């Protein structure tokens, strides 16, 4: 019979706070996954706090320390120190495993039951879903188990994913790993609005190096490398509602925009820039709109009266099919990266708004015509999500991103929202984001916002989240039985081992 390497023993506590005495020298860590095993039933436990325990009264311990520090007896020690002084781990039971049946634990493990570290075989119930998104490997404390963690993309994407973390914790590395694993799966169309131009891999490794990139990845940039598309959007593709929640207009300006749109249809922006007079629009309002469009879109009239586009991303002649090409590609299950690194915030969000609106309303139509089931799930990666999902922004009304957050799942459109500031996203929006991949965060207010909106009870994980190192994360999802601690591989390491078809491995099911 295999001998169990015991690392501790249950010595007390209650459901959410089981006390485990650490066996000396076993060095339990925050986040460690432990197991008790009785009659074929496993309880998976997780350490969320550590503290000292001692049989020696505090005053005696302080006296002994003083004697040593002040030179009265360097050789002084406790009698049987390993027995008298120890570490108590506070753990919580996160899963009960009985064969293939995984449930939330409703009983305590037996008093005094022995605890061992988790092993790969304990997680054999984790299988690779049919439409996998790879996240990393199961992590126990800082130790990595050879168990891959996937979530079922079809489910989690349409129910939105939020990735909260502060700078430098590996958000974009995680997203790159996820997108790499998705690329080529025809069940997903992914739109990436990339304000840092970091996903394609223009100057290093990136999604362009994926073996299926040629047929499944489109890259749009205002300065495209060979083979990539020029990001150029025709002014006629822009409708007034694309600005909603992206650019603030006064009531008078909105009325003017409506009048121009009613009068000139898709040529409304051109006519505003050209200063075509419309009854009911004050010259001053028109002048302000011209200035706004100059700032946001870079469109103006030159000295000869010709329409010019300063940043070349918006054009009155080129880019007639750009939006449609992108939406068609998404509908064909491809990944589309839009490099917006050279654009102002508003222009970036506007482009996203144009594309997301097009795909969202197209999918709404598919639902009404009964075609939606055969269409891929669309995911929209949006960086610095509070720019469009923040309380302050939404106070003036919804935009397409918040509409997707609230209603997208009905139409198979979801967000992958990346943020440093979860706390300023309204709870109503966060509640709709059913998967949270939580990376390290040193800001207590942010941790609380994350914990309060998590799919599982993470009320005791505040310290654990604070202590997450770069690349370490916790996956909390309605589609997981428990919050899974993971280690995300470095993208460059991951792609080296995943440039060919992946082998079947023991994996986590979402």
């Amino acid at each position, binding site marked *: 019979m295999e001998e169990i390497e015991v690392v501790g023993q249950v010595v007390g506590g209650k459901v959410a706070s089981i006390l485990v005495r650490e066996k000396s020298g076993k060095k339990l860590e925050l986040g460690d996954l432990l197991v008790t095993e009785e009659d074929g039933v496993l309880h998976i436990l997780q350490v969320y706090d550590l503290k000292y325990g001692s049989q020696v009264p505090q005053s005696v311990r302080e006296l002994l320390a003083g004697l040593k520090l002040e030179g009265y007896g360097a050789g002084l020690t406790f009698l049987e120190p390993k027995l008298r002084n120890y570490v108590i781990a506070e753990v919580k039971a996160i899963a009960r495993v009985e064969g293939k049946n995984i449930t939330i634990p409703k009983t305590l493990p037996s008093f005094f039951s022995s605890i061992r570290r988790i092993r790969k075989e304990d997680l054999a119930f984790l299988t690779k879903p049919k439409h996998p998104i790879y996240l990393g490997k199961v992590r126990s404390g800082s130790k990595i188990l050879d168990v891959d963690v996937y979530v079922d993309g079809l489910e989690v994407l349409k129910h939105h994913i939020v990735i909260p973390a502060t700078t430098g914790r590996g958000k974009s590395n995680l997203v790159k790993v996820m997108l790499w694993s998705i690329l080529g799966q*025809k069940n997903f169309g992914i739109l990436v609005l990339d304000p840092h131009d970091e996903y394609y891999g223009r100057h290093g490794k990136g999604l362009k190096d994926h073996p299926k990139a040629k047929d499944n990845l489109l890259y749009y940039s205002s300065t*495209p*490398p*060979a*083979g*990539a*598309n*020029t990001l*150029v959007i025709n002014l006629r593709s822009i409708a007034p509602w694309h600005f909603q929640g992206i650019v603030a207009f006064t009531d008078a300006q909105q009325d003017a925009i409506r009048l121009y749109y009613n009068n000139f249809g898709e040529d409304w922006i051109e006519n505003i820039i050209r200063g075509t007079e419309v009854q009911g629009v004050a010259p001053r309002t028109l002048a302000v709109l011209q200035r706004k469009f100059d700032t946001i879109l870079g469109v103006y009239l030159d000295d000869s009266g010709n329409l010019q586009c300063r940043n*070349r991303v918006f054009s009155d*002649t*080129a*880019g*007639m*099919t*750009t939006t*449609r*090409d992108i939406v*068609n590609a998404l509908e*064909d299950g491809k990944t589309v990266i839009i490099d917006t690194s050279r654009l102002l915030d508003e222009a970036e969000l506007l482009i996203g708004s144009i594309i997301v609106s097009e795909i969202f309303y197209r999918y709404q139509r598919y639902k009404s015509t009964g075609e939606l089931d055969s269409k891929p799930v669309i995911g929209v990666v949006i960086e610095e999500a509070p720019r469009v999902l923040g309380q302050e922004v939404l106070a003036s009304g919804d935009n397409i991103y918040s509409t997707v957050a609230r209603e997208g799942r009905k139409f198979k459109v979801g967000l992958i929202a990346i943020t440093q500031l979860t706390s300023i996203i309204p709870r109503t929006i966060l509640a709709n984001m059913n998967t949270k991949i939580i990376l390290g965060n040193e800001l207590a207010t942010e941790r609380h916002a994350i914990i309060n909106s998590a799919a599982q009870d993470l009320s005791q994980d505040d310290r654990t989240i604070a202590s997450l190192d770069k690349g370490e994360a916790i996956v909390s999802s309605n589609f997981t039985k428990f919050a899974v601690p993971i280690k995300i591989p470095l993208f460059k390491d991951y792609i080296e081992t995943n440039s060919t078809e992946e082998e079947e491995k023991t994996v986590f099911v979402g």
Partner: protein
Amino acid sequence: MPKFAHISDCHLGAHRDPILQKLELEAFDKALTKCIEEEVDFIIISGDLFHSNIPDMGVVNLAVKKMREVRDKGIPIYVIYGSHDYSPNKTSIVDILDSAGLFNKIVKGKVENGKLKLEFTQDPKTNAKLVGISARKIGIEEKYFEILDRTSLEKEEGFKIFVFHSALTEFKPDFLARMASIPISYLPKGFDYYAGGHIHKRIEESLPGYGRIVYPGPLFAGYPRDLEQSARGEKRGFYIVSFNEKVEKVEFIEIKICDYLFFDYDASNKNSSLVQRELIQKIKDLDVKDKIVLLRVKGELSGGKTSDINFSQIRKILMEKGALHININRFGLTSREYTSLKVMGEDIHEIESKLLKESIGTVKVSIDSLKGEKGAHLAFELLNALRQEQKPNESKKDYEERVLTQAIEVLKLTEVFE
């Protein structure tokens, strides 16, 4: 100041109708006559000079006569293959006329160490340097662009022209949204002029890093849709470009050979007999004399079948009123009595392509290249190869062999049958 003409998409031999055939040749003749009058130094034809790789010899004969007249005036013609006159088995009329010295096919190069290295052709009189990439049958030879050694082309000094027959994604018109295209980033930068073909719409553009990017559009019409666009006001013609060290002037020369009339009729919520009556009534009032008439009937009939509408009678009335040619587009016409029609399109090619894409999922195959869009594309190419008609004076044996060879090449099975 030196100048050249840029012509594209002549599609000679596209039409079976004698009137249209005459008009397409007339447009070609008129354009080359204008080139002679304007004393251009050379002419670029950026693909699809002919509508097929082996066009009707009568058409070829007339075209050759005109091109010889141009050549005899000392005006060289530089050409590339288009998607129509490309021949995978190297028997294109373009090659024959190139060999005969009538014009100069400028696509020259070789693949070295995985890179396509193109050679410039220098016009002896103006020293302009031309280089180009031909198209292939249906769609784009994207592979050529992928492996193109752009750096060496960009380093070349002098006045440079890049000739190509591909749709550029950035400039695709709205009605060609689904057309296969390449991004402009595949083209070498720094050329003075990019002479495009394939898009049947006039386009003059520029983007940072690139000189003038010009598509003249068809000289007359390769498809009924071109006629429809002409009838809607799209001007047809070609460009004359003046240059010194840089492009100085780009001028569009309109070639107008006839008048058009476009008539759009919406049959939605009307039954077939009402549509018949209304159409006859309406066309009686039209002035169609000596005009190409484009009649588009669209919408869903509330009753009756589409075949109940006697379009022959409508055609006859229009002919009697003196119309030059009548094209009736009823691809957008459906009836509630028929529910099986799932796709709509503006021409046969588009409808076929959509139908194949819609249907490919119902065919169970194990090979990846036969699935999805790739499979539909292959089926479309095969269909085109198999439905070619026998040429005049072509023996049955030669015809069968030609069709078979092309079908085998489409299927990439040449080595198997060798």
